[in-house]
């Protein structure tokens, strides 16, 4: 399904109940008041008058009084929201197993995860219900599920799309992005969503380009870096084969391919660095969730008790664990040793990558080491290179605020796998052009897996 097939919101809305019964991907379905291009929003996007829970119990009754900046933009551009999609609780996770509404399922195999945290948004595009959906990406929360569901997932440059009205996870890493089924739609969507918003001081004044009209798949002289640390860490031969096929085809089309091997210690530090910064910012960002002026309140004998009980009952155990980790990193006595150190290492990782990327057009790697895991699969060993590097490298895009996107690369055991490209800041034009060339090579535009 593509953006061009406009004004089918009501038809799309009618499919929701059945799709949701199979994929468990929705928090709220929204009957569109008028026709428009159907779109689904991740449930951390504030919608005036419509329940917005971020898949978290403490917000189970929260109805915003204002629209996120992008919601107004979508309304102005003829889109009609038909639903609020399931996500990992407060966007803190990569599996979509932690949503208060339960796990979201992969349309290619209902026993497998959608990936997260923007899982619901991903599967509603992958299953062909909507041509586009909104997600958010703090580590790889758009680009990983895009890989698992065989669609396009875009996280543009930090500041390119306003974050106003997006329930945050970690402010310095949070990006608003989206899913589509093809590169052309991805370029079009950025034209709709990007631009300065005075309510988000980190949003950019830079001109928004007509990305979709600028699309050009000519790869002659394009410099593309192959991320060797990632390909070396992946054990699945089929993933590597698919990836190498694309690299070779790009070379045939005139691209200059260079393999780069970054400092291994820094690459292994991506996950712990991410974990510290993201959780530290998250614990203070979510201090407003106290049951006092909005949200689910648990009564108590004092204001303090109300706040404590509301928070104790309002969050899942994994969230509390992250808050504890984040608080610990921020304690005055620990800050130098943990939080500030993590910020320094974040800078070192970005510098390490930028010293190569600044003279190239893109950094390219498989988006994940393999297909989507089973819902019941025990979590992998978190200390292997495969996990530390191949499963988490895309956080580099968040560390540096770099534009980064995932698009379909091929299939392993009939399950989709994706390729990721990351470019220089505000070089979305380059990113879309290279993505288009890859899409032409794979022929995997507009692939959906219907479940209805």
């Amino acid at each position: 399904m593509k953006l061009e097939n406009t004004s089918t919101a009501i038809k799309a809305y009618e499919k929701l109940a059945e799709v949701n019964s199979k994929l468990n991907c929705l928090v709220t379905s929204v009957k569109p008041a008028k026709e428009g291009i159907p779109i689904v929003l991740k449930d951390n996007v504030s919608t005036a008058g419509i329940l917005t829970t971020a898949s978290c119990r403490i917000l189970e009754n929260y109805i915003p009084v204002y629209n996120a900046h992008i919601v107004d933009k979508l309304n102005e551009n003829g889109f009609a929201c038909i639903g609020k999609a399931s996500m990992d609780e407060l966007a803190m996770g990569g599996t979509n197993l932690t949503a208060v509404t339960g796990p979201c399922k992969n349309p290619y195999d209902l026993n497998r995860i959608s990936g997260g945290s923007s899982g619901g948004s991903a599967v509603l595009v992958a299953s062909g219900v909507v041509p586009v959906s909104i997600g958010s990406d703090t580590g790889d929360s758009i680009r990983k599920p895009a890989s698992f569901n065989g669609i396009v997932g875009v996280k543009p440059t930090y500041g390119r799309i306003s974050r106003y009205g997006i329930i945050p996870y970690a402010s310095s890493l949070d990006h608003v992005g989206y899913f589509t089924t093809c590169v052309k739609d991805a370029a079009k969507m950025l034209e709709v969503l990007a631009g300065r918003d005075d309510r988000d001081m980190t949003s950019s004044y830079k001109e928004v380009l007509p990305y979709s009209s600028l699309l050009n798949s000519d790869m002659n002289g394009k410099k593309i870096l192959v991320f060797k640390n990632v390909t070396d860490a992946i054990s699945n031969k089929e993933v590597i084969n698919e990836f190498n096929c694309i690299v070779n085809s790009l070379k045939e089309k005139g691209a200059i391919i260079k393999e780069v091997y970054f400092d291994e210690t820094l690459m292994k530090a991506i996950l712990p660095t991410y974990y510290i910064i993201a959780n530290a910012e998250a614990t203070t960002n979510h201090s407003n969730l106290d049951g006092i002026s909005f949200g689910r309140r648990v009564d108590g004998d004092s204001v303090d008790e109300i706040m404590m009980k509301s928070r104790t009952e309002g969050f899942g155990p994994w969230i509390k664990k992250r808050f504890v980790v984040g608080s610990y990193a921020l304690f005055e006595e620990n800050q130098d040793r943990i939080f500030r150190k993590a910020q320094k290492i974040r800078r070192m990782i970005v510098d390490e990558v930028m010293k190569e990327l600044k003279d190239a057009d893109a950094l390219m790697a498989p988006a994940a080491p393999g297909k989507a895991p089973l819902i019941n699969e025990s979590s992998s060993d978190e200390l292997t290179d495969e996990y530390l590097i191949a499963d988490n490298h895309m956080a580099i895009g968040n560390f540096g605020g770099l534009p980064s996107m995932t698009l379909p690369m091929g299939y392993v055991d009939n399950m989709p796998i994706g390729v990721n490209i990351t470019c220089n800041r505000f070089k979305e034009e380059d990113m879309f052009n290279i993505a288009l060339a890859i899409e032409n090579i794979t022929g995997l535009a507009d692939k959906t897996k219907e479940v209805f």
Partner: protein
Amino acid sequence: MNYDVVVGLEIHLELNTKTKMFSGAPYKFKSEANTCINEVDIALPGTLPCLNKEAVKKAISLCLALNMNIDQLIRFDRKNYYYSDLPKGFQITQQFHPIGSHGHLDIYVENEYKTIRINRVHMEEDTAKQFHLKDVSLIDYNRAGVPLLEIVSEPDLSSGKEASAYIEKLRQTFTYLGISLARMEDGEMRCDVNISLKPKGSDVFGTKVEIKNINSISNVKDAIDYEIKRQSELLDKGEKIIQETRRFDEASMTTISMRLKEGAVDYKYFPEPNIFPIRIPDSMIEEVRANMPELPDQKSKRYLHDYNLSEYDANVLLANKYLANYFDEAMKIAKNPKLLCNLLTSELIGLLTKNNSSIEDCKIAPKDLASLSNLLEDNIISSKQGKMVLEEMYNTLKDPESIVKEKNMVQVSNEDELLNIINEVLDENPKSIEDFKNGKDRAIGFMIGQIMKKTKGQANPKLANDLLTKKLMER
């Protein structure tokens, strides 16, 4: 035993910007509860802070007035703590890089000038207001997010008198700059006192006690005076001062312990990620400097040196920005500063007070008061007539010249005319001439009265007196 008193003050000042520090919600003091708020102020999920440029300009103007170093890279930090008056669960403040540092302010206490160093001025946001009733607590979020400046002095103050002079001088500075009305009774300006005592001449500071939220300048003085007495009595008895937070109780005029300082709270300060550091251009600072009004110190110099006013008169004028500005406006026309000052500070203010009005609302234009002052200076009318004219000006808003003309009030200052009248009076009162010759000065008063009667009170008293004395001598 004798002690050195060491006092430092932390002042919180609400700025009078149209909107809040980090949100576009309008703020007006004394609005109905929860009507000056938007989604940012109550910290609804997804909201982001947006810095108020006017607030930054006002902070810059204060930094300039207090002779501070200005950090042109504006940075904000989060101060994290859970409290129901703090909607976000953190306050955005400037912990690590205050906009102003190393400033100073001169105060005048007991006929001496003293320089008080100011450690820092930083920008932050106010909290909501809470009302704890019997069964419920109510929260008014109107104040949440109102721009605050925190002004922290060095411990350079050594008495209640100095502290109150310092606050008064700061308050004047705030109002002259037009950055706040700085009414302590309304909480627009709040003061925390840090006070410790040490043996006279000692280099070692004593244990610090904090007195919180004192709501008037005189209470600051009283709280410090009480605390000096309390602490010195304890120290005299060989007892230790406990590090604690106290509050001032107005009824008993004492300070009362609120809580002990057991291990400071860890606020987990860290840089606010939603506001990147902002570079203030030199041009913005110069723009603020160019638009700064004349400050009390500069005015004071002018009053003392150019106008020869007394320290007392100058301070009366300076205490109220509107009064000083009225005076300055009138001085563009008035010839005699001292005469104008008296006319303004006793006659006009007296009249306004009698009518429950104030100089801010005064309808008499400064230029008209200046004309009145000149009529007096030139002896066109007498001071008694002056009072009548002023009252008439107040009631009718006519200019003094018209009133004087209408009422035919012009003083008889023509020598020939006066001499005729004096000769008449002398001829009619030979007894008084005799009394005068016998040394009875009262006779002059009687004859002046007669002159006034004949001129309907319009004789220039000084001239009449001089001429009468001269004529008496001749007889």
